[in-house]
């Protein structure tokens, strides 16, 4: 039997944001995996390819854009679906995220509906 449950990964140092994702995805047929920093997320992502990756930008030590640049160098993640979630609503960050292949750029605060809508949009495509 093939396990076709989808995995969504969230990388954000803000515990409330991670809790918001838990709450928003309650009842959805997917596994949510959360990390509070890029370094621990990278350990997981070296061997796992999620259906969708939500990524914060301002985090302690490695920022989300540098992390995404590193991630894209791994063959496994050249085409991983990535959504940026950030309070940094700047054109330069949007442009960099776009160049690194991020699908969307959501600014905080984002309502729960925005999270479920985007999951539906991209998980259904996969």
């Amino acid at each position: 039997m093939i396990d076709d449950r989808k995995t969504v990964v969230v990388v954000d140092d803000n515990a409330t944001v991670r809790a918001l994702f838990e709450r928003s995805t309650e009842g959805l047929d997917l596994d949510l995996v959360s990390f509070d920093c890029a370094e621990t997320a990278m350990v997981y992502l070296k061997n796992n390819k999620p259906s969708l990756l939500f990524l914060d930008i301002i985090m302690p030590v490695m920022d989300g854009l540098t992390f995404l640049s590193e991630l894209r160098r791994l063959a496994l993640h050249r085409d991983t679906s990535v959504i940026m979630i950030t309070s940094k609503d700047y054109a330069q960050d949007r442009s960099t995220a776009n160049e690194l292949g991020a699908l969307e750029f959501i600014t905080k605060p984002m309502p729960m509906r925005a999270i479920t809508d985007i999951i539906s949009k991209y998980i259904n495509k996969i």
Partner: protein
Amino acid sequence: MTKSYVRFWGVRGSYAAPFPTHLKVGGNTSCVEVNVDDTVLICDAGTGIIPLGNKLVAEAKNKEVMIVLTHYHWDHICGLPFFVPAFIPDWNLTFFGPGDSKQDVKQKLDSQMQAPYFPVGTESWMANINYLDPRDAKLSIGSIEISYHNVHHPGVTYGYRIKAANKTIIYVSDNECQFLDKSIKQKMSEFTEEEQQIFQDMNREEYEYELNTIRGADILIHDAQYTPEDYETKRGWGHSCYVDVVNYAIDADVKELYLYHHDPYNDDDAIDNIHQKCQAMIQECGAPLICKIAREGMEIDLD
């Protein structure tokens, strides 16, 4: 006899402002020297690094320098092509800044010294140039220890925490304080009651993170480019309003705040006016914070 100090060589944001009406505060762009017994750390390489380089060469006390860059916007790197120590063979320069590899940092610095923008490239630098791995979380030169954190400004931008001569100096040249707080307040009415509670918690947590990046500072050098009137039209440009900076410094129990990265539009009188308003705010809430205007040539004694 040696001494330890912080000296402002450039205090302007955006572009150099060498206008007669601006010279009490200073016209050069971002550059701060942290000097501990002739060990030299330079924060940012705006036009202020040009006279600093000339001084270092004239003194020739120490030919090893570390330069940490907050980011690569012009006002923070445009002095480097004229930084004389880079062109002298027996000098050693170490660079650190945001990037995903040493090569990436080098490339970012090379880019501004390429045709048709500049007559010679970084290959004309004769000093020994060392680029540090941007993933090094902790740096040092001599007894000076440096760590960095990400701040709120377009592109990846760092603030630096510097331990020097038993003092903690925080250098945050460009940062838009409390951006999330304002975004939440703007959109609050669009959210459900549950979401409103979640976003208040998110905001508290985010602010606590921001406070931790500057907590314990003896000296905070922070972006204070805008007045409240400026900020109404320039929210989202990546710089702070002085009102937010003063509140931020008070909340983090900072001892001394130096208002920095002055708007080149503001002349000496305008900046003095900002300072007076900051002083009034501090007095009104009875905080022990000392607040000063960062002025070119100003030296803070660390001994």
